[in-house]
């Protein structure tokens, strides 16, 4: 019974195994990025970037149909352009990063809609909007795995300046120029992981696998390595459980994965050992010193 529900789908169906591999790869890349987004108070930046890459993907779709490479390239170009321009404007003017990003992503969104409407095709963008992890082919799976690997390597390279820039940006500015580089590279990683997620989860839900596991991790650990590990584990568990849920019910895979992740988040808010609700309602006795 338990075997039938939880394990058999993956043994019987290749598409389920591919989907599982994809969601593990996505989790490894997206969850650590999400932790940094959260700690840098940039959670909504991920959401804004998801909107920013949508028109790029749409243009890719218009030019060459449902071709993942064209759509990925379009999304990457749009995302990088918005991230770089917003980052540069925020660093060199009085405009804060959030306001700067909002202006650019709105412009990008409007531009995308304009291009699509001028072209006049009634295209089916549902696929791009909500994704379909059960339709992963070999090529797509390899791209997803490559992007996750790239993310982890680049994150390792910029890890130290990124941490210092997050906790004490002024200090880093006085000892090194690495801060700006780390920040912009980090934004690029956000874009790569959003694009990476949109075949599986769709552009709008891709950000879910970044932010929800990160939020979950905040309730279970007080230190960075712990948070990243818990976020990755929680993303993988959500991916697996979401696929099972989707297989056993009629819920589409993308929303199923994100809903499970949201469920874990709610459980963590309630029962997390770092300032969870229950913990605060029934505090342990205070200490001597």
């Amino acid at each position, binding site marked *: 019974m338990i075997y039938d529900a939880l394990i058999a789908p993956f043994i019987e169906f290749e598409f389920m195994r591919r989907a599982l591999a994809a969601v593990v790869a996505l989790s490894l890349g997206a969850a650590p990025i999400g932790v940094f987004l959260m*700690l840098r108070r940039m959670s909504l930046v991920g959401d804004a970037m998801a909107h920013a890459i949508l028109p790029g993907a749409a243009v890719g779709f218009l030019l060459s149909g449902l071709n993942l490479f064209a759509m990925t390239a379009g999304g990457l170009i749009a995302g990088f352009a918005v991230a770089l321009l917003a980052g540069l404007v925020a660093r060199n003017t009085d405009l804060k990063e959030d306001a700067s990003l909002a202006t650019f992503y709105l412009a990008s969104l409007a531009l995308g809609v304009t291009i699509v409407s001028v072209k006049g095709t009634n295209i089916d963008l549902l696929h791009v909007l909500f994704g379909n992890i059960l339709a992963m082919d070999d090529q797509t799976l390899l791209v997803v795995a490559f992007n996750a690997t790239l993310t982890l390597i680049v994150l390792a*390279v*910029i890890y*130290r*300046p990124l*941490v*210092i820039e*997050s*906790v*004490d*940006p*002024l*200090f*880093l*500015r*006085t*000892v*090194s120029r*690495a801060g700006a580089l780390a920040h912009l590279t980090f934004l690029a990683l956000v874009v790569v992981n959003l694009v990476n997620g949109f075949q599986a989860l769709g552009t709008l839900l891709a950000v879910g696998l970044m932010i929800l596991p990160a939020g979950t991790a905040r309730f279970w*650990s*007080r*230190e*960075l390595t712990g*948070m990243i590990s818990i976020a990755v584990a929680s993303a993988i568990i959500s991916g697996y459980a979401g696929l099972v849920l989707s297989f056993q019910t009629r819920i589409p895979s993308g929303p199923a994965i994100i809903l499970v992740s949201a469920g874990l988040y709610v459980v963590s808010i309630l029962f997390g050992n770092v300032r969870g609700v229950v913990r605060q309602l029934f505090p342990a006795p205070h200490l001597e010193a």
Partner: protein
Amino acid sequence: MSAQLQFRDVTLGYDRHPAVHHLSGDVATGALLAVVGPNGAGKSTLFRGLVGILKPLAGSILTGGIAARDIAYLPQSADIDRSFPISVFDFVGTGLWRQTGFFGGVGKEARASVAQALAAVGLSGFENRGIGTLSGGQMQRMLFARVLLQDARLIVLDEPFNAIDTKTSADLMALVEQWHEEKRTVLAALHDMDLVRAHFPETLLLARGKVAWGATAEVLTAENLAEARRMCEAFDDSATACAVDTDASKAA
């Protein structure tokens, strides 16, 4: 002794309004210089210019070949995200950036020097505490430990003893004196005139421009302090272009 810092008719400010106006002067290598003046006198602005995070509106600051990474700067209100999950040990360890950079390993020796720095500021035993759990005084001790670790030739401290109890400021002042003995150049913005008189041989009294600069006893006279207090604090929205600069450009 040779000059380490040279202020060459430097003007620093924001949106064209000067906060430090036409300051000139030299700081000798190994000097222990107090920078005093009322709020709004331009002390912090001067330091921001000195460490290179604010470009001068006019004039220049020469640092005698000292690279940015050889300057340790402790800002007045450190822009530190205290909710970030980082331990005291790791935070202080960032002071080793000059040696480690992006990838350099933090070996036994480096760990020992972090531990030593923490011991020097009286924070042994705090290694694994999150920075968010520290009190104001402990935070300042931790920041001093990082400055210690930076092993810089030029140390710039912006009001380092604000909101700190006497015990802590005495402990930290001992570190400042140790840096002076090690022939490092130390500049500190301060409000406590007794502390300045007791520990700082040289003082710059600043009130947007230089009021007096020299031996502390000669600078901190009643007349000089009164003159500094008369300074105009707020900037004037309808101010015209600075006559000194306009005349200079006409001459050129």
